[in-house]
């Protein structure tokens, strides 16, 4: 639903003015933006949707701006996100069309503009609304095939990811994030210890989406339309994307359907294996689900850090701090074999 510009707060109105100048700088002074919506309450980005009126070009566009301060964000710089998105898009991974990255002259901070894709992202709605019954049946097959296509991209095409700490050693990188956020948690320490001692041997090294889960795909009634949110992309073991997708937190209450709340792991694994020709190690995948729980707990500590240090105080980020124990509970119950 479009809103009148004057209904936005002062900060958003300022962003809209800069956005208008940004598109005119590239496409001419006759270019207009209309039907502006603020699309997200997201924890790390501001997302604006708008119609870009210039000739016959498909008008609906998205501005995505980073909002986590760079001194403690674990996320890929937006310019690098854009490069990875462009590579994935070029290889036919369903994703928003990359239009252009922001530049310093735009005075909009770090971010980029992509084409907009209509559809639903809210996980609970996707898991329960009768409108998405067909999409639900297709979801795991499509998700498996999509990952196979992404993981097959030549790493030389995403050279921006080579120096990302997660690409070097993901466990070491996350321990460093944990240290930075200054919140000692015995359960997280125990889980790191367990992960270090039980780590399976590395499999292939591929381009990982890094945040591949229910909620980060735009879905229509017919199935998945686009994969979003490229800020966690890095290089690593293909099982990392599977472990994150099946992490208990991303089942949205449907805990007996480990694959994103949609169904069983095996359907998801087999779709990938059929599309890629590569076999997945089921036992090692469990390690990556445990790692996923630790990582999700740590994202909550990141938001708490922003709140406690006064950089981004908000009730939502304060709640993240206290919700960390809910993930710790899932973690310990899973490691005890009481949760699957």
């Amino acid at each position, binding site marked *: 639903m479009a809103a009148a510009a004057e209904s936005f707060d002062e900060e958003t109105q300022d962003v809209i003015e800069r956005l208008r100048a940004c598109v005119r700088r590239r496409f001419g002074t006759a270019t207009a933006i209309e039907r502006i919506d603020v699309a997200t309450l997201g924890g790390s980005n501001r997302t604006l949707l708008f119609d870009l009126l210039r000739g016959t070009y498909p008008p609906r566009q998205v501005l995505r701006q980073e909002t986590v301060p760079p001194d403690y964000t674990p996320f890929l710089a937006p310019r690098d996100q854009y490069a990875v998105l462009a590579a994935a898009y070029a290889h036919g991974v369903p994703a928003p069309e990359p239009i252009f990255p922001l530049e310093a002259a735009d005075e909009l901070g770090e971010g980029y503009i992509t084409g907009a894709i209509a559809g639903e992202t809210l996980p609970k709605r996707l898991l329960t609304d009768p409108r998405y019954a067909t999409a639900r049946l297709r979801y795991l097959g499509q998700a498996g095939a999509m990952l196979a296509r992404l993981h097959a991209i030549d790493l030389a095409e995403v050279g921006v990811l080579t120096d990302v700490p997660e690409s070097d050693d993901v466990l070491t990188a996350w321990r460093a994030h944990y240290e930075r956020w200054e*919140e*000692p*948690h*015995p*359960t997280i*320490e*125990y889980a*790191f*210890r*367990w992960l270090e*001692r039980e780590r399976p041997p590395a499999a292939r090294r591929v381009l990982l989406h890094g945040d591949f889960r229910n909620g980060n795909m735009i879905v229509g009634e017919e199935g998945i339309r686009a994969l979003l949110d490229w800020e966690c992309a890095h290089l690593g073991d293909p099982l990392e994307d599977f472990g994150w997708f099946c992490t208990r937190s991303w089942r949205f209450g449907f805990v007996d359907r480990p694959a994103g709340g949609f169904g069983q792991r095996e359907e998801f694994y087999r779709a990938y294996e059929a599309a890629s020709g590569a076999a997945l190690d089921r036992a090692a995948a469990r390690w990556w689900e445990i790692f996923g729980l630790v990582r999700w707990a740590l994202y909550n500590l990141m938001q*708490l850090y922003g*709140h*406690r240090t006064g950089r981004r*105080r*908000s*009730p*939502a980020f*304060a*709640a993240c*701090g*206290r*919700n*960390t*124990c*809910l993930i*710790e*509970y899932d973690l*310990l*119950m899973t*490691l*005890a074999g*009481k949760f699957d």
Partner: protein
Amino acid sequence: MAHDQPDVPDMVLTAREFLADLVPRLDGLDRYHALCTVYLLDIARRELDEWTHDDTPDDEHLRALTGASGETQPATVVADLCRAIRSGRFDADLAGLREALLEHVVAKVRVVKPSVLVPEHRSADAIPSGETRE
């Protein structure tokens, strides 16, 4: 006990900040009641400064795990326990450590969101009827 951050004074302050920001966008009775709530939260914050907490079974449990004395503050015990785990002190019995930590985490969850606990971890009076999901 050694609850996670934010602590109670910070949670009260967070609610106060949010309401104070909201006040200019409210009218009439809503505005008046929001201002009164800010006033009440300011009183609550000042009164919290006078509070002291008795040790809980969880505090004793964590002290026993680390061998800390009875005077050691819960936050210090938690930090010491983290260092001990990292140093490998519990490596010989990680399953035993996991069970001990589960007890600690259950104590935290009983306050944050008791409805997610499996029945064996719930206490009879642990689930307030007005619990809301964040």
